[in-house]
C-alpha cells in the first residue's frame, strides 16, 4: 500500500470519478476523430493515463510493459464488422459463456441449487446429475407413466409458466424452454403421470 500512497499525487482521481461514459475514457474522447493535431487518431497510450496504472501497481510506471491494447470497443465502427454479424455473434457468445443456468428446487430442501443445462447432452446425463446432486433416485422415464415407481419426479417450469414433466419433449426443445427445475415428491407428482 505504501507504494500506492506515495503516488497519491499521481492518482488520477478522474479514474474513479462517476461519469457517464465507458471506463477508461479520459478527456481525449476516443469516439470522435482526434485527427486535430495528432497524426494518429488514437491518443498515444504511453503519454497519458499514468494515474490509472498508479493505483494498481504502486511502482513507477513502465509504460512499455504496461501498455494496454487500445480499448477497441470504443472506436465507432472498428473493427469493421457488419452490425448484423456483431449482433448475432454477441448474443451467442453470451449464451456460450454464461451457460444456461437454471434453478433447481427440491421439495423439502432448505435451499435451491443451480445447474448449467448446456453441459448435458441429454436427459440421461441430466437425471444422473440431479440424482447425485440431491442424493436420490428418480427412476426411468416412460411416456405413459412418467417416472413410475420412484419417490421423486423431475418437473420443470416452461416459458409459459406451466409445470411440465421432464422428458416429454426433445432435448433441445427442453433446453430452450426450461426456466427452472423442480424435483417433486412422488406423492405430489401423482397428477403428472407418476403411477404412485
Amino acid at each position, binding site marked *: 500500500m505504501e507504494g500506492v500512497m506515495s503516488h497519491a499525487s499521481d492518482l488520477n482521481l478522474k479514474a474513479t470519478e462517476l461519469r457517464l461514459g465507458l471506463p477508461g475514457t479520459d478527456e481525449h474522447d476516443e469516439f*470522435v476523430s482526434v485527427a486535430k493535431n495528432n497524426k494518429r487518431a488514437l491518443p498515444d497510450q504511453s503519454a497519458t493515463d499514468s494515474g490509472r496504472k498508479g493505483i494498481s501497481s504502486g511502482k513507477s510506471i513502465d509504460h512499455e510493459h504496461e501498455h494496454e491494447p487500445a480499448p477497441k470497443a470504443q472506436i465507432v465502427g472498428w473493427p469493421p464488422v*457488419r452490425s*448484423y454479424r456483431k449482433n448475432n455473434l454477441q448474443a451467442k457468445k453470451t449464451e456460450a459463456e454464461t451457460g444456461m443456468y437454471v434453478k433447481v428446487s427440491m421439495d423439502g430442501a432448505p435451499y435451491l441449487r443451480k445447474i448449467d443445462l448446456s453441459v448435458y447432452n441429454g436427459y440421461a446425463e441430466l437425471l444422473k446429475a440431479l440424482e447425485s446432486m440431491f442424493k436420490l433416485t428418480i427412476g426411468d422415464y416412460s411416456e405413459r407413466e412418467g417416472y413410475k415407481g420412484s419417490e421423486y419426479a423431475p418437473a420443470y417450469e416452461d416459458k409459459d409458466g406451466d409445470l411440465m414433466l421432464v422428458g416429454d419433449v426433445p*432435448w433441445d426443445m427442453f433446453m430452450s424452454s426450461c426456466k427452472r427445475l423442480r424435483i417433486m415428491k412422488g406423492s405430489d407428482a401423482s397428477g403428472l403421470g407418476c403411477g404412485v
Partner: protein
Amino acid sequence: MNYFPEEVLEHVFDFLTSHRDRNAVSLVCKSWYSVERFSREKVFIGNCYAVNPERLIARFPRVRSLTLKGKPHFADFNLVPHDWGGYVYPWIEAMAKSGINLEELRLKRMVVSDESLELLAKSFPNFKSLVLVSCEGFTTDGLAAIASNCRFLRELDLQENEVDDRKGQWLSCFPDTCTSLVSLNFACLKGEVNVAALERLVARCRNLRSLRLNHAVPLDALQKILVQAPQLNDLGTGSFLHDPDSEAYCKLKNAIKKCKSIRSLSGFLDVNTRCLPAVYPICTNLTSLNLSYAPGIYSSELIKLICHCKKLERLWILDTIGDKGLGVVASTCKELQELRVFPSDLYDGVGNAAVTEEGLVAISAGCPKLNSLLYFCQQMTNAALITVAKNCPNFIRFRLCTLDPTIPDAVTNQPLDEGFGAIVQSCKGLKRLSVSGLLTDQVFLYIGMYAEQLEMLSIAFAGDSDKGMLYVLNGCKKLKKLEIRDSPFGNVALLADVGKYETMRSLWMSSCEVTYGACKTLAEKMPRLNVEIINEGEQIEASPDDRHRVEKMYLYRTLVGPRRDAPEFVWTL
C-alpha cells in the same frame, strides 16, 4: 462503316453478359447504342442516386433484372445515420407504372418497406427472383406478400438483413400451387417459422437447389426436409442441436448421406459439436463452407471438420480456428480461393483473437490459388506480408484488418508500409484493397505506383499528410470507390484533381481534415457531383464557418442532381 442489320447486332450482343461490355458497346456509335439499349435485360446500378427510375426506364425499356445499391459501404459499420436514404420504393413504383416486365430485383444496403414488397409482389406477374443483402425496413408481412403473390417465384434470398418479425405465417403464404422455388434463404430471420409448412413447401418444389434455414428450424425438422430434398446443392442448417444418441440424430445422419449434391454448407447457428460428425460424409465434396456464425464450434472441432474438406474453394470462419487451425486448412484445402476469417470476440476490448500473421503465412504457402482474402488479426508483420505476396500473386481482393487499427509490425515496430507495398507490387490483378495497422504516406506511394487495376480502396487511421491521398488519386487510374476514415487528408488532396471524381463512383471521407469551404468549392466546380455533408448530433449551424472541419462527407457522380429524399441532417452542397 460495315452494315449489319439490327437483328444481327442484337444477336451478337446477346452474347455479351457483362454490363461493362454492354456499356462499352453502347458507346461505339448511335446505332449500336440504340440496339443495345433495347436489348439490355440486366441493368446494374452501383449507386441508386447516380440516376433515377425515369432515366432507367427511358433508356432500357425492356429491363427484366435490376441490381441496385444504396448506402455507402461504411454504413455497415454504423458510420451512416439511420435515415440517410436508399429507398427502393420509387424504383418499384416507377417500373410498375411503366409496365416494365420485372423478373429479378437485387438490392444491397437499401431501405425496403413492406409497402415496396407488396407493390413489387402485385405489379410484376413474371417476377422470379428477389435478393436482399444488408437491407432493412421490412417485416415478415412484406415477405408474406411476396410468397402469396409471386406465382413463379424461383428465388427468395435474404442475406444479413434486419427484419422485424411479425410472428405471422409468411412461409405458409406460399400457395400449394407454388412449385417453382429453386432458392430459399431465410437464415437471417429471427422468429419462428411454420416448420410443417416448410416441409410441405420443400416437398413440392422439386427444383429446389439452395436452402438456408434460420435458427428456429430444429434438427429433427432438418432431417425431414433433407429426406424430401436430397438434390440440394447448398444447405444452410438452422439449429444443429440434438442429443447425439437419439433416433432423430441417427435418422439425420442417414438423410445427409443421401445428399450427394451438396457443395455448399453454412449455418450451425446453434450447435452441439457432438452432432457435427453427421456432416462429415458430405464434406468431401464441399467447395464452400461458412462457419462464421457458429462460435460454439471450438478450434479442435473445426479442425476435425476441415480435415474432411479437401476440395474447399471458399471458407468463411471465425478466428477461433487459430493459427494452428489455419495450418490445417493450408495442408488440407489445396483448392482454396477465398478465405474470410472473422473476429469472434468483439466486445472485450483485449480480444482473444487467435490469429496472427503466422496463420496467414501458412495459408499463403499451402494454398497457391488464393485470390480473395478478408482477415481480421491480432497482429501483422511486414515480413509476413512480403512472404504472402510472393506466395500468392493472384489476389483480386485483399482486405486485412488488424484489431488495433494502428498497430505496427509486431516484430520490428515499423509501419506496415513495406508489407502492403509488396502486396500491390506482386498482385497485378488486385481490384480491392483494405489496409490497416500503422501506415505512413509511403504505403500510398506504393499503391499509387503499383495498384493499376485497383477499383476499391478502404483506408482507416492511416497516412501522414495530403500526399498520401494524392498518390492514390493520381496513380490509381481505375479507382471507382475510395473510402477514408480518421486520416489526416485535407483540402489540398481533395481539390487537387476535381475531375477525377467523375471517373469514380464515390468518395467517402469521415474524420479527416477537409473543411466546409473546400467541399463547397468542389461542389461549385463539379455540378455533376453530389457532395453530401452528413451532420449528426452536433449543432446544425445555419451556415457553418468555411474553416470548420467536416465530420462526414460522401460525394458521388450523378446524372440527376441533388436527391430530393435527403433527410434534414444531410446537406447537398
